[in-house]
């Protein structure tokens, strides 16, 4: 195309006026369909089902003195909070915790390994405390967990209860 032809080149024929320009139709542009990876499979972590089953079981202990020892009914808000916390701190391949109802309506989460035991007590939502017991040297490490800052607790759990 010469320079003169280029000046007269009209990419949208009939677009000399605004009205005509509005009626102009652009040629269709084809874009290659993006290649996508295989669909993600959302698999539940192995610890989740036994944990959920146990929490559901404990939710049935709704009456005070359910054990004949004067224990308070297990608090449903504690069970919900425990699930929320576990969902945040557990590694995918973590071992499901033992869940023991306590006399005050809270629960104890516990994990046992050959050389250490980790116990977390949830008295009420956002109130977590625990102890890591080293069975080799009988040293106890107290754990104070702030529900808003779970980094320290997550580190303890990841270091100590990952499935081997």
């Amino acid at each position: 195309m010469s320079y003169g032809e280029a000046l007269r080149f009209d990419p949208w024929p009939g677009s000399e006026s605004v009205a005509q320009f509005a009626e102009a139709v652009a040629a269709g542009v084809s874009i290659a369909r993006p290649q996508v990876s295989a669909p993600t499979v959302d698999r539940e972590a192995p610890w989740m089902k036994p944990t959920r089953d146990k929490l559901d079981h404990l939710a049935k202990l709704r009456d005070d003195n359910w054990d004949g020892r004067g224990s308070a009914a297990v608090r449903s808000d504690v069970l919900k909070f425990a699930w929320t916390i576990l969902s945040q701190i557990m590694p995918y391949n973590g071992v499901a915790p033992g869940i023991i109802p306590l006399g005050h309506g809270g629960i104890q989460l516990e994990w046992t390994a050959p050389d250490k035991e980790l116990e977390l007590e949830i008295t009420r939502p956002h109130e977590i405390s625990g102890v890591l017991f080293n069975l080799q040297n009988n040293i106890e490490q107290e754990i104070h967990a702030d529900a808003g800052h779970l980094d320290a607790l997550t580190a303890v759990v990841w270091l100590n209860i990952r499935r081997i």
Partner: protein
Amino acid sequence: MPSAPPRDAQGRIEPHDHAEIHDDCHVIRHIIPPHDLHEGRVSSGAYSESTAFGVRCGMSVDIECWMTSDCLGSLHYVTDPSHGATRLRVGFLRSLGLKVGWDPDNGHQHHGAVWDITTSFRKKMQKAAVTVRRAAGEL
């Protein structure tokens, strides 16, 4: 009849050390399966205090030496055959700083309570407890 336990203004039994529950006496703790068990062993959580109906009750126990004096066996109050029982020495509990008292209101005439239990003490009690009868599912 033992001397009466101390009571608060509402008439509730206060945490106390009862002088007639001697250090060489033992108390019996009932073990309720499956809740008190973890991987077939009695969990330290089995040794927690109770707070029923909003009232702090301590950890419920049977006072074995008083039962023996009345010609009752150690498992007299463990009536459910699936339930287990463990034995703890009173002197050991007191050495931890715990109070061991009489609590006839929340059970029977040989019923006692242990107060001031923390997570760390629960673990020590778990280790010191002697099995009297295994609970169903206990290894």
